[in-house]
């Protein structure tokens, strides 16, 4: 069959809301787009463990520590679901890790910012996980089956993350002056990077349109960002915290909040490797991978020896 008609048939399946499964025919660009997006998503989960790992040993109570530990463990699991989903498209785990380490593959920019205070654990839960959830919920209906199924699991677990973060902030907001200032300072630092999590404006996002046609994406970057702002403004009131944007105001006509301009120069600077923690994050990942090599090798050698021994026993008996 001609490629053209195969592509047409593929698009018809997408338009009928049929899910695409690993062995189905798909355009090479669809496969590549998904590998890029899913692996980037997986890397984000894994690198995202680092800023929070920073606070596990210094959590203010056992309750907070247990919750943070569970959250970071969830993120490892999310990374794993997503790597597995990407592997169904024909890329190996090792290739993906290599691409992360040599800089070919990216991870979410947000994790290149440092976690300076305990309040950051709350703000990450509220704003960063909040933005992530907004991006991820529509992905549960993504046209690619394995990705959509992975996202259902991720989203189920993610809501605990956001709630534990908000609770941390709520406690600070009801605390003394110093605690309230810590909360405000943290929100000041994380607000704009969180807004950038939705990616460039629609006009500057070249891949978006094709991804929407393929139903990998269901909403545009700007639509999701607007939704995030509208939700957060109301939630900020409960925390008694000010969102650091002078242009933030209700627009009766649009039925949405207007907000200020995002510093895209900063965004691209961080994407290109010059954020506050880019080098540190990547080095931590590479070190962990290299220092763990002997463990992976030993496990393989042990498994081989065990199976050989079993084989020998079978022959002997």
């Amino acid at each position, binding site marked *: 069959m001609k490629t053209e008609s195969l592509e047409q048939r593929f698009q018809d399946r997408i338009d009928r809301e049929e899910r695409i499964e690993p*062995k189905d025919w798909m355009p090479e660009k669809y496969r590549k787009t998904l590998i890029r997006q899913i692996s980037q998503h997986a890397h984000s989960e894994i690198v995202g463990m680092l800023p929070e790992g920073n606070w596990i040993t210094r959590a203010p109570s056992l309750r907070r520590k247990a919750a943070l530990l569970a959250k970071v463990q969830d993120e490892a699991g999310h990374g*794993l*679901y997503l790597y*597995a989903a990407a592997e169904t498209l024909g890329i190996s785990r090792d290739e993906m890790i290599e691409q992360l380490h040599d800089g070919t593959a990216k991870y979410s920019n947000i994790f290149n910012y440092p976690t300076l205070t305990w309040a950051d654990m709350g703000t990450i839960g509220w704003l960063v996980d909040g933005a992530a959830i907004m991006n991820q919920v529509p992905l549960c209906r993504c046209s690619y089956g394995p990705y959509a199924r992975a996202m259902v699991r991720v989203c189920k677990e993610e809501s605990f993350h956001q709630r534990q973060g908000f609770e941390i902030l709520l406690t600070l907001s009801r605390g003394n002056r110093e605690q309230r200032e810590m909360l405000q300072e943290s929100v000041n630092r994380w607000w704009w990077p969180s807004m950038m999590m939705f990616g460039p404006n629609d006009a500057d996002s070249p891949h978006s349109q094709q991804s929407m046609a393929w139903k990998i994406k269901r909403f545009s970057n700007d639509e999701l960002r607007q939704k995030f702002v509208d939700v957060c403004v109301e939630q900020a009131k409960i925390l008694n915290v000010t969102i650091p944007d002078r242009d933030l105001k209700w627009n009766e006509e649009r039925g949405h909040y207007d907000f200020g301009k995002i510093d895209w120069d900063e965004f691209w600077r961080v994407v290109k490797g010059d954020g506050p923690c880019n080098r540190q994050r990547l080095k931590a990942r590479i070190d962990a991978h290299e220092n763990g090599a002997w463990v992976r*090798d030993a496990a393989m*050698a042990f*498994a081989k020896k065990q199976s050989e021994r079993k084989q020998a026993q079978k022959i002997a008996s």
Partner: protein
Amino acid sequence: MINQEWPLWEIFIRSRNGLSHKHVGSLHAADAEMAMSNARDVYTRRSEGISIWVVESSKIVASNPEDQGPLFEPAANKVYRHPTFYDLPDGLEHM
């Protein structure tokens, strides 16, 4: 250094007795024992199951989507396999 990727395993979970095992995802592990303990950590952290099967992915034989026609279409024109195919009077009960 061996630098060899651990094999891939498919994980099936029985959520409670009375239900069959259902595919939940996959993971890499050096052997069955490790696949089992990783499956427990990854897929049952919130009481999702009471029984786990792990199967090495390479041992699974899957049908090819391109064979979908020859494999499954013959069932489409055998409507007489369904109970609604048979015309029976309205008054007939317990059937």
